[in-house]
């Protein structure tokens, strides 16, 4: 596959600080001119109020993207994702380095760029299309399709200032969706709006990728990134710190941002706990006993706690609590196994695993809290370790999950694969 985009040692510097962050005033410029002859005398530490700080939004970024690749770009706010997109879209120039684009570029950093409230829907389609880089003949050819897609036929000759915000966004997106660049640059902004709108966006991206086009997709929606992209780059402080298969990079990102991985081991001296119990290891594993950062949504997931019992004679109940990335408490589970439920334990090392069935948790990141309690004869909390382990639940979209053939966003804390029944009474002829 030939490269579609080559980014060579691109850096971008912004100057910030000074009296006004964004712009100067004419007065300042005149002042600057007036002072210029004296500047040399004062040396480097002359005018403190006007010193500007350099901020490197991108530092030596090199990247090659091939035809038909859908590249996900993730990272914290301020990591340089948007700056990279702006350079690729030719909105701003790199300070150093260069970029080669082997195709027509379309960028959607915002829906409805250039829409004018006073103009009608029809007029805005032409204006917006031209702004996005379409030719008039092309817009004219696709006009009916755009209008049909937007579902605002009735109001097409009404100024868009009278539109509801939903209509406005639909019309704006329709124009954007009919752009046919070979390289599409998309920012998160497209993922706003209601579920149906998001669905349209994601469907369209799918379609575009299948046409062999190249897409850059910036998003904070990790499930969407893992689902849509095969390759993902992680940006941190203006640099690409990881580049590889989507799942792997998303895991790296999440574990680095939470600083939590799928396994936590404590050396004996640091093991949390009391005189009775100490935690030694917590991890998420699969049926084969391997620690897993990314769990297949269809397979059972083991949450394993290893602990030392230091004092004999206590009945102990290991507990796991699972939270999702938004902080929702999905469930708590207490060990109810008959063997140790009411049996005082001798001193030793124990390993308890709670098995989550397959097709149980929804896609996304899960956080695990582990603790050991006593319930019988009396309740006591011996040790509680919060946010010790994090892992991802991934739907690889094989078609045999609760998604079926659906690829869009699927809200909900759990994702059971339910049994469906349809009884039919078919009327009329086939």
């Amino acid at each position: 596959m030939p490269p579609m985009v080559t980014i060579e040692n691109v850096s971008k510097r912004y100057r910030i600080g000074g009296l006004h962050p964004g712009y100067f005033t004419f007065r300042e410029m005149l002042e600057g001119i007036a002072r210029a002859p004296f500047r040399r005398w004062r040396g480097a530490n002359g005018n403190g109020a006007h010193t500007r700080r350099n901020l490197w939004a991108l530092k030596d970024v090199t990247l090659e993207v091939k035809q038909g690749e859908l590249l996900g770009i993730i990272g914290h706010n301020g990591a340089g994702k948007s700056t990279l997109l702006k350079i690729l879209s030719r909105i701003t120039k790199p300070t150093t380095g260069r970029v080669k684009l082997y195709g027509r570029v379309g960028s959607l950093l915002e829906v409805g760029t250039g829409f004018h409230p006073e103009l009608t829907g029809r007029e805005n389609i032409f204006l917006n299309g031209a702004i996005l880089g379409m030719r008039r003949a092309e817009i004219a050819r696709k006009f009916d399709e755009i209008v049909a897609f937007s579902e605002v036929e009735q109001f097409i000759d009404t100024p868009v200032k009278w539109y509801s915000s939903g209509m406005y966004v639909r019309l704006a997106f329709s124009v954007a969706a009919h752009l046919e660049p070979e390289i599409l640059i998309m920012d998160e902004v497209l993922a706003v709006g209601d579920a149906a709108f998001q669905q349209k966006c994601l469907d369209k991206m799918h379609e575009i990728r299948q046409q062999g086009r190249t897409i850059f997709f910036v998003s904070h929606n990790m499930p969407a990134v893992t689902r849509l992209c095969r390759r993902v780059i992680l940006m941190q402080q203006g640099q690409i710190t990881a580049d590889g298969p989507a799942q792997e990079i998303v895991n790296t990102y999440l574990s680095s941002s939470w600083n939590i991985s799928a396994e936590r081991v404590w050396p004996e001296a640091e093991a949390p706990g009391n005189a009775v119990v100490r935690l030694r290891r917590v991890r998420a594993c699969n049926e084969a006993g391997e620690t897993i950062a990314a769990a297949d949504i269809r397979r059972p997931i083991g949450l394993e706690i290893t602990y030392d019992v230091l004092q004999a004679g206590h009945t102990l109940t290991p507990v796991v609590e699972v939270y999702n990335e938004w902080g929702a408490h999905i469930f708590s589970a207490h060990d109810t196994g008959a063997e140790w439920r009411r049996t005082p334990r001798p001193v030793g090392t124990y390993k308890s695993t709670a098995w989550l069935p397959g097709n149980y948790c929804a896609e996304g990141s899960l956080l695990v809290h582990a603790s050991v309690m006593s319930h019988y004869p009396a309740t006591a909390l011996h040790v509680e370790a919060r946010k010790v382990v994090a892992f991802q639940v991934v739907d690889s979209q094989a078609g045999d999950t609760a998604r079926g053939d659906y690829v869009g966003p699927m809200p909900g804390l759990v994702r059971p694969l339910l049994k469906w029944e349809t009884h039919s009474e078919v009327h009329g002829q086939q």
Partner: protein
Amino acid sequence: MSLKPSDSVRPLEPTLEAAHAPQSTLNANDRPADDARALRPEERPHVLIESEESGVQLDLGDFWTYRELLYFLTWRDVKVRYKQTLMGAAWVIIQPLLTMFVVTLVFNKFGGLETGEQMPYPLFAYAGLLLWTFFANAVNNSTTSLVQNTSLITKVYFPRMFIPAAAVAAGLVDFAVASVILIGLMIYYHVALTWHLLLLPVYVLLVVLLALAVGLLISALTVKYRDLRHVLPFMLQFWMFASPIIYPLRKLQGRWYWLLTANPVTGIVEGFRAALAGHAAPLVPVLVSVALTLALLVCAIYLFRRLEVTFADVI
């Protein structure tokens, strides 16, 4: 020139489509989606994004690729301006017309200013005001245009020069409307039809280029130095009095005559009126205007190109 996009919604003739066949490499890939699989990037990149240090490039190919956008931006400016007003085109006529009455009253009737020759003062003043109103409005609108279109500049790429250029071009529509009164006055005062009238478009072109040059220059600087916007109205007012708009250049002598001749507006206005009256234009002021206008335009384009790479960052 039709300004309605609906005209182009009609199914396009195949021949028309063929006429739009690849004029530049950037357009070459506009094929139906089904063919997309067959897209083969060429060896040479379509677009090479160089660093800020790479210097100023004129990039004329880009202007050609985006030429339709210039039309759409102009069309938008015109459409929006006329949509929001109750009387529409009437305002465009009222402004120079009322000014003409006032200056005729003040300078001609009370002040006794005479223009001599074959041209009565009202026609003389209106011709000058027509050009000046276009020039001042074009400069004014293009100056604010970049800042007003911040969302375009920070969200999408196209030649930024089109924004102030569209503001100037939109002013031409007002100019055309206000010219109707000029024709009316010419008929009223029985202005003879001479071959000199054919020179009028040349002077209109000159004033457009001058407005474009000044507009590009000031709009580019306004992005960085916002307070230029407040300086501009004064500047334009002084400039008007320093141009022979409501008085003839011939009234001035010696030093003042030459000072005014150094003003690029002078030659254009004098030439325009001479063509209207059917006699030869004062050669030196016209040549000075042509030279200054072209020089200013080259400087403006260079400066604009140099500053435009920073627009998205500082606007």
